[in-house]
């Protein structure tokens, strides 16, 4: 399936765009997506951490993604 992933902060700079269209297996897990992103953009490995959000909530590693999910890559937050 094709996933559209929203990017913010330093993740946007690493990828060079505010969103990314990614080919990924159907029902890909969040952990699987993260591995795919890490290998495609090695600079992500240098971050303190990063997370994946689905539909405005933090997603667990074993969550299975669907094409209609709103997916975002969340680099270390620093609000406040």
């Amino acid at each position, binding site marked *: 399936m094709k996933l559209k992933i929203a990017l913010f902060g330093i993740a946007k700079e690493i990828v060079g765009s505010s969103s990314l269209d990614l080919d990924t297996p159907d029902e890909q897990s969040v952990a699987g997506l993260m591995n795919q992103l890490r290998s495609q953009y090695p600079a992500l490995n240098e971050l303190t951490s990063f997370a994946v*959000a689905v539909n*405005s909530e933090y997603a667990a590693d074993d969550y299975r993604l669907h094409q209609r999910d709103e997916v*975002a890559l969340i680099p270390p937050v*620093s*609000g406040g």
Partner: protein
Amino acid sequence: MHIHLTDQPIDVAAVLASVQDDGAGAVNTFIGTVRNQSTGRRVVRLDYEAYDAMAIRQMEHVAAQAQEKWPMLRQVAVTHRKGRLDIGDVAVVVAVSTPHRADSFAACQYIIDTIKQVVPIWKKEEYEDGSVWVAAHP
């Protein structure tokens, strides 16, 4: 609860007014402002980027968690700024009202500490000679 994300200057008095409650004798407020330095470097301004929908959702979660932990909480308000901020500008205001004061301190501190851990907002510090996304790298 009163949760806002805005690209306009925060009206602190309005946030305080929103937690006023005749049953509450205590209001604690935390205001985060832009400092003129960070880890020894002189800061000239900050840029805050937010994932708006998720940021609001997460601030609501944090306020709801505080309400569960401190059932006597009367009112909770959180307003976070985004966009370009100058030195001295208010970046975030948290205000809570409770019947007694110890709870107001504890709940307010819990809320700001948790916001800083979970709310998808990113701060880029601009120096005279470069910029850094705060907390991005170890």
